């Protein structure tokens, strides 16, 4: 009954209130990161229009920073693209994990929706079991994507046009960690399987961050999933 009321209430608007509530704390943490990206692109002599357009097309901050650094060091296009693929390889796993939610969607959404797949959108969307209903997931996903896009591109554009509008060392950079902790902790407390894979992923990420920082996330996430695969295989 409660879920039916919530569904009816959420269908009143084109946007999804739960999505805005979920993504708001994460948006706070995106601002300093977008500022760093804006400053980096300005320093590299990238035109503000190209910077904002490119940030929308790539839609992945860490990979964009790496691509810009490699471009400035004179690396070739193939090297840059290979680095971007390694850094963003985790998107493949996120996509596989969210595929059931995209399965019964209209064709346009199946091809355009995944463009907005980033760590932040994956984490909040994967946590909500009630998003199995296609229209509800679509509205949730587009609300999250819209909110991230507005904050991300506005901050980058303003920073490139006017310079950093806030100090770069704001404590807001801690916001994503706080959000990820709050989403992970209930799983750790209630699910032994989550405890096991999180431990494996954490150790692997820590080790990979020392050896090969650009690939730390894909190594860590793959190790967590891989440990579950091995455990199931041995049973």
């Amino acid at each position: 009954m409660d879920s039916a009321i919530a569904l009816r209430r959420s269908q009143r608007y084109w946007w999804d209130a739960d999505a805005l509530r979920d993504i708001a704390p994460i948006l706070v943490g995106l601002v300093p990161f977008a500022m760093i990206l804006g400053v980096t692109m300005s320093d590299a002599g990238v035109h503000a229009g190209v910077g904002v357009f490119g940030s929308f097309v790539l839609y992945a901050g860490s990979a964009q920073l790496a691509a810009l650094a490699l471009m400035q060091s004179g690396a070739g296009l193939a090297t840059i693209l290979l680095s971007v693929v390694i850094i963003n390889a985790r998107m493949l796993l996120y996509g596989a994990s969210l595929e059931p939610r995209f399965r019964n969607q209209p064709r346009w959404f199946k091809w355009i929706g995944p463009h907005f797949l980033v760590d932040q959108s994956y984490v909040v969307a994967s946590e909500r079991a009630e998003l199995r209903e296609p229209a509800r997931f679509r509205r949730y996903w587009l609300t999250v994507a819209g909110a991230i896009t507005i904050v991300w591109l506005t901050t980058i554009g303003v920073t490139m046009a006017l310079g950093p509008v806030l100090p770069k060392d704001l404590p807001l950079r801690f916001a994503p960690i706080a959000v990820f902790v709050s989403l992970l902790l209930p799983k750790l407390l209630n699910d032994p399987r989550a405890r096991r894979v999180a431990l494996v992923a954490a150790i692997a990420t820590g080790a990979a961050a020392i050896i090969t920082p650009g690939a730390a996330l894909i190594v860590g996430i793959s190790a967590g999933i891989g440990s579950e695969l091995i455990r199931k295989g041995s049973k």
Partner: protein
Amino acid sequence: MNAAIVLVGAGLATWVLRIGFIGLIPARTLPVRVRRALDVTGPSAMAALIVNDLMHEASRGAAVITGALIATAVAALVMWRFQNLALVTIAGIGTYWAASLVV
């Protein structure tokens, strides 16, 4: 090299990764064992993201990572006690900021 070409090329490569198991080779065609293992992508990703962010903090110096670890512990404690995302975020950022003044 032209930044626009680099960013568009990188965007296309990333888009292919994003739709890889959604539109190109749907994940439902993967073996059942693999699909079941993908259920743990969420906790794996969150643990990896936390550690990756903390490793970034560590690269900024001992004082910064000390503050970040204290703030992470406070965030976990607040989550355990109150189960309130906004409160966790405020407590975490506040502790991180306070630690940066003290440590």
